[in-house]
């Protein structure tokens, strides 16, 4: 049967082009996602600053929890958000370990030069790389710095540097020979660096020469020794975070695209079988058993999918690199985290493509073997619109699954959990619509026919065609619905979240001025002294873990909090927020099961445990963070203690503030973390939207070009080209209308459930212009995919087209 399949394939290139393109795109997407996933699982970054040190001792960068089950015990680890420091005294203990010839300590802190971020270190840690001087000399006094090569700073310059300790002017005494690609460093005199870092008695890392077993010296501390590429993960904590993100993103994107691929490929296969109904009936009548027909269709699918899979996975490698470059540009992935390139994603993509095609062929073959051989005889019966019972049951089951998922989604209040479920919910609903398609098409055409008859010729014919070809209409409506639903969900999940957070932040911010970013505490104190200023609240954002679960947190200075920020306190009070207390949002309180007065154990950003008493529960968690901690508690446990400041001063203008405390308003406010997240989603999920768009074009082009005989007949009986084209356009617009209604319905259901879970309001935020753009794009794509093949089919003499065998 394979040779027969091959013959058919070669003869019907056009019919299989649709399935081929769909499979190719699926393979490319799955391969690219596989690369991201693999990078997330196995990727590492090579050390730069620690490259010259065989072993680095620093704090444990993970929160670890032992989960005990009756049968086994396993330890789970999650990365902490900030760098974990170690006591400086540890350096001396490590140095005394036999075999250690030398230890080098390092402190790391943020330093901003006109808003540009640098990493500040003491010159003591230069041997870790090692850094050597190309020009000038090392910093000796508190007012001197050495700049890394490639930063454009030259010896002799006086530069203003803002650090957690405030802003100061430094004389550049030297420039290094080395220029590290992943960072820009400023080296201060050792004592000055320790002062600026603001963590007396602590260091961020200890370099050990040579690498020997130092576990004896570390046994009663949280510190760990890192060698090889592990040093890179310590040096670049961002890379670790990016890896975790890549795992979830790659998984979600790959899974979604695979499901979309199966849906699209089943659609194209089903359409091509519908178009070959006569041929299959003939084969059945002449001598092919149902099994042989199944094997022939399976063989075709196999051939198409292997070729599409091979080409697609090759294209996927390119797509993977493109995605990486986009993520790097969006700061979602550090530049030095290289993609892991191995044959696994290629093989996985090929296997997934072949499996998807095989599954699709199997599903469509169920329809094919139902074609009765009798249909090859004489005048074939009109395609029936009756849904086979199996399909009806599957459709109803899918609808049931959609209901269940929607209910589950409406109770999910964590974005990480809600996002994949949102996609799945929209997909399951679409599958239900696809399965019940002919029923829906029947119902919808009955309604639309009334409107279509307004156009006397084109509309009349279109209405007749829609009614007669409910099956064909259903096969066109499915990808259109998928596109509308997925696009709306992908776009408007982000706007719903963003809008809710913005609304809460706007409603809860009472301060008239927002200063920042990177406001040192000293500057905030100076602002407090400006006449007319009522209150200043310093705000820092970090994340903490309760158990292994991550919570976004803000740290605020408690004085005058009530006049700068209104968190919408529901119970308890924010007065008396101190080092031993915490306020939690309502969603977080529900997740943690705590009320005012109870205690929670949490792990601060750098892995330091803390036990805090809940003093308040508030409503505006989305806008401000799930936990609110005291500024003083958090500052020693974050990498960058420079935050923003909220200032309530009704009588003072911003210009006055800037005049009183220079340099607080010079930098433009940094983009919120949320928007970068949204852009990453847009890039990744945009690929899925593109995929569904290709599917739409595909299906419509297939459907239209298969009707050339019918179009020729219409022209022979006196329909003009213009009337035929209008008829086709109206048919497509009717399909678009049905798809927009159903797709919007699916999207609204899904988004409402998502919104209910995340923001407690069932009303998602859908910008009207954005929605309009989705609808117009869908309609334009669909029309283009109809009219172009139709024009091609209408060229030439209609009699020739009619004479040509099917």
């Amino acid at each position: 049967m394979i040779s027969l399949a091959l013959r058919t394939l070669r003869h019907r290139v056009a019919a299989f082009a649709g399935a081929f393109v769909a499979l190719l795109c699926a393979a490319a997407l799955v391969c690219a996602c596989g690369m991201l996933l693999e990078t997330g699982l196995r990727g590492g970054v090579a050390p730069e600053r620690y490259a010259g040190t065989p072993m680095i001792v620093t704090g444990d960068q993970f929160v670890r929890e032992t989960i005990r089950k009756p049968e086994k015990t396993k330890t789970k680890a999650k990365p902490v958000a900030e760098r974990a420091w170690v006591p400086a005294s540890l350096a001396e203990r490590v140095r005394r370990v036999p075999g250690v010839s030398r230890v080098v300590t390092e402190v790391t802190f943020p330093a901003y030069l006109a808003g540009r971020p640098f990493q500040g270190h003491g010159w003591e840690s230069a041997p870790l790389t090692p850094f050597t001087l190309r020009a000038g000399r090392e910093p000796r006094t508190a007012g001197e710095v050495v700049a890394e090569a490639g930063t454009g700073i030259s010896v002799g310059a006086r530069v203003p540097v803002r650090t957690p300790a405030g802003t100061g002017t430094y004389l550049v005494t030297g420039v290094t020979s080395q220029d590290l690609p992943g960072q820009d460093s400023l080296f201060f005199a050792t004592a000055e660096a320790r002062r600026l870092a603001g963590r007396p008695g602590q260091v961020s890392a200890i370099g050990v020469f040579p690498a020997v077993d130092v576990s004896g010296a570390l046994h009663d501390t949280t510190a760990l020794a890192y060698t090889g590429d592990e040093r890179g993960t310590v040096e670049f904590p961002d890379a670790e975070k990016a890896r975790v993100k890549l795992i979830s993103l790659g998984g979600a994107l790959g899974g979604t695209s695979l499901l979309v691929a199966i849906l699209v490929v089943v659609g194209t296969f089903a359409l091509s079988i519908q178009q070959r109904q006569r041929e299959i009936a003939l084969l059945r009548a002449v001598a092919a058993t149902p099994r042989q027909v199944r094997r022939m269709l399976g063989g075709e699918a196999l051939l198409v999918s292997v070729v599409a899979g091979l080409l697609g996975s090759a294209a996927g490698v390119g797509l993977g690199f493109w995605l990486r470059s986009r993520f790097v540009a969006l700061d979602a992935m550090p530049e030095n985290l290289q993609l892991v390139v191995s044959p696994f994603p290629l093989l996985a993509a090929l296997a997934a493509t072949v499996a998807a095609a095989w599954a699709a062929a199997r599903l469509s073959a169920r329809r094919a073997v139902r074609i009765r051989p009798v249909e090859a005889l004489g005048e074939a019966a009109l395609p029936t619109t009756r849904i086979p019972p199996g399909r009806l049951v599957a459709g109803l089951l899918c609808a049931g699954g959609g209901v269940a998922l929607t209910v589950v989604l409406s109770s999910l209040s964590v974005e990480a959990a809600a996002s994949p479920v949102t996609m799945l919910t929209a997909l399951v609903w679409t599958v239900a619509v696809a399965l019940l398609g002919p029923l829906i098409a029947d119902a919808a055409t009955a309604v639309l026919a009334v409107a279509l008859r307004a156009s006397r010729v084109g509309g009349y014919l279109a209405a007749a065609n829609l009614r007669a070809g409910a099956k064909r209409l259903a096969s066109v409506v499915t990808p259109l619905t998928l596109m509308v639903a997925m696009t709306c969900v992908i776009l408007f999940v982000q706007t719903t979240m963003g809008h809710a957070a913005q609304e809460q932040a706007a409603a809860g911010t009472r301060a008239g001025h927002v200063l920042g970013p990177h406001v040192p505490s000293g500057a905030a104190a100076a602002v407090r002294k400006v006449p007319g200023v009522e209150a200043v609240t310093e705000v820092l954002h970090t994340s903490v873990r309760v158990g292994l679960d991550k919570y976004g947190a803000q740290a605020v200075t408690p004085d005058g909090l009530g006049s700068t920020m209104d968190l919408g306190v529901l119970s308890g009070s924010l007065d008396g927020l101190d080092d031993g207390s915490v306020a939690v949002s309502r969603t977080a309180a529900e997740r943690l099961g705590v009320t005012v007065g109870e205690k929670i154990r949490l792990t601060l950003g750098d892995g330091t445990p803390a036990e805090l008493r809940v003093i308040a529960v508030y409503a505006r968690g989305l806008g401000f963070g799930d936990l609110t901690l005291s500024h003083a508690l958090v500052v020693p446990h974050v990498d960058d203690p420079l935050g923003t400041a909220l200032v309530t001063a009704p009588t003072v203008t911003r210009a006055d503030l800037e005049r009183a405390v220079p340099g607080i308003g010079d930098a433009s406010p940094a983009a919120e973390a949320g928007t970068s997240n949204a852009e990453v989603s847009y890039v990744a999920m945009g690929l899925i939207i593109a995929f569904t768009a290709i599917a739409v074009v595909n299906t419509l082009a297939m459907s239209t070009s298969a009707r050339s005989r019918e179009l020729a007949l219409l022209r022979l009986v006196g329909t003009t080209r213009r009337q035929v084209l209008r008829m086709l356009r109206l048919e497509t617009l009717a399909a678009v209308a049905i798809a927009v209604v159903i797709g919007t319905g699916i999207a609204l259901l899904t988004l409402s459930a998502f919104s209910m879970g995340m923001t407690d309001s069932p009303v998602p935020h859908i910008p009207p212009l954005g929605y309009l753009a989705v609808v117009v794009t869908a309609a334009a794509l669909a029309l283009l995919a109809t009219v172009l093949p139709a024009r091609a089919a209408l060229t030439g003499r209609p009699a020739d087209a009619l004479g040509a065998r099917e």
Partner: protein
Amino acid sequence: MTDVVRMDAVSKVYGKGQGAVAALREVSVGIPRGSFTAVMGPSGSGKSTFLHCAAGLDVPSSGSVRLGGSELAGMDETALTELRRQRVGFVFQAFNLVAALTVIENITLPLRLAGVRPDRAWLDEVVSRVGLEGRTGHRPAQLSGGQQQRVAIARALVTRPEVVFGDEPTGALDTMTARDVLTLLREIVDATGQTVVMVTHDPVAASYADVALFLADGRIVDSVTAPTSEQVAERMTRLGAWVR
């Protein structure tokens, strides 16, 4: 003479309950080996259903169909397919050929599906008998309507079936071409003893047969041996009057 096809009290009812329509009512008939039979009748008389039931394309609601000694009742779709493959050849009105395959591949398609190697000499004889020498490498789209029907006839003959069924085999052809195809069928019956059953509504086509059976309202109402087209036309007119 033995009967190749034997139908006993065959009925076929479509639909259920109130909407049930009987397409065949208690039809009993035998088709003798080596005969050329034409099945005539007005539209809706049940002649297509008769052909489907006789050829194993459809299963009767009641009654017995024996094809070359095998009882069709109780066979599943795969068994029916294999029986058709070995014992029955088909020539349809149109859409007879697989467009992707050449003439010779179309002719040998049933053999390929059965996994049987073609008998070279028989294949050559069949091809020359239908007059397709030199065209075996063509694709269906390159042939005229009459030539396509010749390919279909060759395909029907290649498995040496017990019986060849034709469903309006000349329905889509012009008069001259139709005459050529009918002459070919007649020659095949005469020269090789092949049994042919053909459904038609064309009295001229029926005149090529040995026997014409007349169906009306699901029953065999008449039969004429060695019919002429005038006889057939006259019977048909009367049948039409009965049905109205």
